């Protein structure tokens, strides 16, 4: 570890020196370090892309390394920056976006990078939900989107059949969903409904598809002084519905983060809200396999005006970083980063990544290309996440563009805890949302204070 760090420092030193002579002339390609947070097998697939990029040109060499889970990678990159050994590129999960946006000179904004290097990437072709998440309010891109996902509903067709429900038609609204859940319970399905990533699917996505703000200032896109707004009638009503379903035995809390996935994968749950990226696992593990796996868009309340619109994304994006508090990159290094990003934007690369992993095709061209291969006919439901992101005509609103709150990791934990306490019966839905707002706002104010200027 220590040797590696020292090695990096030694390597980086000559690179940071002024560009008196073209770096290429000294022999050997310029190294671009790339830290990512994807475990196997996804991490391997990602590293393969870097290897292909290296083979495609002689000037740059992207050196990828796995740094643990997303939060661990985030912490590693921050520690790296503080000790002037930050990677050139870091993969950062969507929850860290607010923190990265406010990171000042720790990061190199993508629009700046592209302008300085003259490399162009056709962002018009990117899915609006993906582009919007990583751009400033005026549309300038801050990070390079790559592995994006969104939340969808998976259902067990066999369980539907046993309950006398049509396995080809999933519930579209919450009223239909509750009716179906009651039928599933009557047919002895152990867990009619459960969820993975509870706050993401039940609070963040719910707010987005109902065009209801999660926080002021367009969910924080408008500045650091945003305030949470999730104690609104829609959210209280929804948490109440979940609590009622919990008491009736039609909903079961599956645990934090991805823990709920397991309840669906082992066949005990009828419906689950999960990341579209969980599809690969369900195809492998769900009893009955792909023939038994139903995919549907997130249900909504049909009496809410204007609902449903597009959902928001999850997953991660690539950020260009400066080396340390007092060290920027050379023009050559920036050029390498930009060219790697341009490579990632190629339709072929995007399409391959999508079909191999289950993440979204982030560009429309890649989506169209995959369509022509017949992939979606062989893998029914694999296109549902994209259709859902484009729902409402792709006209995103301030509430459905994404979430840009500093310290959002901490806010999520607070919302999760308050939901848990409500579902235990220790507090009402209103109290849970009020407490989340109070606790979340403390985090936001602290973040605002430490990141001012």
């Amino acid at each position: 570890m220590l040797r590696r760090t020292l090695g990096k420092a030694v390597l980086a030193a000559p690179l940071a020196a002024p560009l008196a002579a073209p770096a290429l002339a000294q022999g050997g390609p310029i190294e671009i370090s790339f830290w990512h947070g994807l475990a196997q097998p996804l991490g391997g697939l990602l590293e393969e892309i870097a290897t292909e990029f290296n083979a495609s040109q002689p000037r740059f060499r992207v050196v990828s390394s796995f740094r643990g889970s997303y939060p661990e990678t985030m912490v590693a990159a921050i520690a790296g920056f503080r000790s002037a050994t930050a990677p050139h590129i870091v993969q950062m999960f969507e929850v860290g976006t607010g923190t990265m946006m406010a990171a000042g000179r720790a990061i190199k904004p993508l629009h700046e990078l592209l302008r300085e290097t003259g490399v162009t990437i056709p962002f018009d072709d990117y899915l609006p939900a993906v582009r919007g998440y990583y751009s400033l309010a005026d549309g300038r891109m801050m990070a390079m989107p790559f592995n994006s996902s969104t939340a969808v509903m998976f259902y067990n067709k066999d369980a539907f059949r046993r309950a006398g429900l049509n396995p080809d038609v999933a519930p579209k609204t919450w009223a239909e969903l509750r009716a179906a859940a009651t039928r599933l319970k009557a047919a002895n399905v152990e867990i009619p409904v459960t969820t993975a990533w509870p706050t993401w699917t039940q609070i963040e996505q719910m707010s987005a598809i109902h065009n209801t703000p999660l926080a002021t200032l367009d969910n924080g896109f408008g500045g650091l002084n945003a305030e949470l707004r999730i104690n609104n009638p829609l959210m209280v009503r929804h948490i109440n519905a979940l609590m009622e379903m919990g008491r009736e035995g039609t909903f079961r809390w599956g645990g934090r983060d991805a823990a709920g996935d397991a309840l669906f994968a082992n066949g005990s749950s009828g419906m689950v809200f999960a990341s579209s990226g969980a599809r690969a696992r369900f195809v492998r593990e769900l009893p009955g396999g792909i023939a038994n796996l139903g995919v549907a868009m997130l249900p909504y309340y049909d009496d809410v005006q204007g609902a449903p619109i597009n959902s928001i994304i999850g997953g991660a994006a690539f950020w260009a970083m400066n080396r340390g508090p007092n060290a920027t990159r050379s023009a050559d290094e920036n050029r390498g980063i930009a060219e790697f990003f341009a490579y990632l934007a190629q339709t072929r690369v995007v399409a391959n990544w999508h079909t191999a992993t289950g993440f979204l095709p982030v560009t429309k061209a890649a989506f169209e290309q995959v369509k022509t291969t017949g992939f979606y006919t062989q893998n029914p439901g694999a296109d549902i996440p994209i259709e859902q992101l484009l729902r409402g005509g792709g006209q995103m609103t301030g509430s459905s563009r994404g979430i840009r709150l500093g310290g959002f990791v901490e806010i999520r934990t607070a919302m999760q805890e308050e939901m848990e306490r409500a579902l235990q019966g220790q507090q009402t839905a209103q109290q849970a949302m009020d407490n989340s707002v109070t606790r979340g706002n403390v985090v936001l104010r602290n973040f605002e204070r430490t990141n001012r200027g």
Partner: protein
Amino acid sequence: MEKKVYFRGIALPYLLLLPQIIVTGLFFFWPAAQAVRQSFLREDAFGLSSQFVGFENFTDVLSDPTWLDSAFRTLLFSSSVAILALASALFLAVQADKHIRGANTYKTLLIWPYAVAPAIAAVLWLFMFHPNIGIFGRALNAMGIPWNYKLNGDQAMLLIILAAAWKQVSYNFIFFLAGLQSIPKSVLEAAAIDGARPMRRFWTVVFPLLSPTAFFLLVVNLVYAFFDTFGIIHSLTQGGPGKATETLIYRVYTDGVMNLNFGSSAAQSVILMILVIVLTMVQFRYVERKVHY
């Protein structure tokens, strides 16, 4: 004639002490000093701006009701773990100390859990008590007991206490057994001849002679419950549901590593350090008086 070993000059003794001083300084005093320094600062995650805020981090922590809840929870958790681990280890050691067939096998088996890493121990318990996957979890639900530690805070607390205590029983067992075996048999025989029944012999002869061991183990167990149970909590409950299993050490981790709130995390570490110093002082001042060496 009294024999005295002494060194001429002061260079050699200090030289001999040097390695220990370097190691302690490097791995204890320096990080501790860093924590104290950090606890007075407020910094953004990237260290681009940092500002001296005096005792603000401390007052923030101490006036946070959820932190105080965590503190009480930690005391409950630690004392439960210590009592449970000590009592069951003592019981097992007394049983294993008797002349029974296969005593060596029992001893070996009882020592095994100590060799298991906390995180792995937690996974074992997870596989047993997960409400949907675990054998016992499923059995409890089938029997009509609504077991779901992912949503029921009391059950979650019970689970981590059991898992943490189970992990520590072996360690206590070894010490208690060694303690029991060092008690002279003649004393026990004399008591028996005087007509003391087994229970009386245990409480009036054996237990007092074991008290140094028990006291040592009490200190070790409390420190274990305070600091070493992180892996168990992290793998089993992550401090949830709600904050039902969030102990102080777990909170230092979430605030410092996950939430990147370095100032608050450092302040909490300093408070924790003071708390443990006070706890240990109290133990040595008051509990130790009851110990007969």
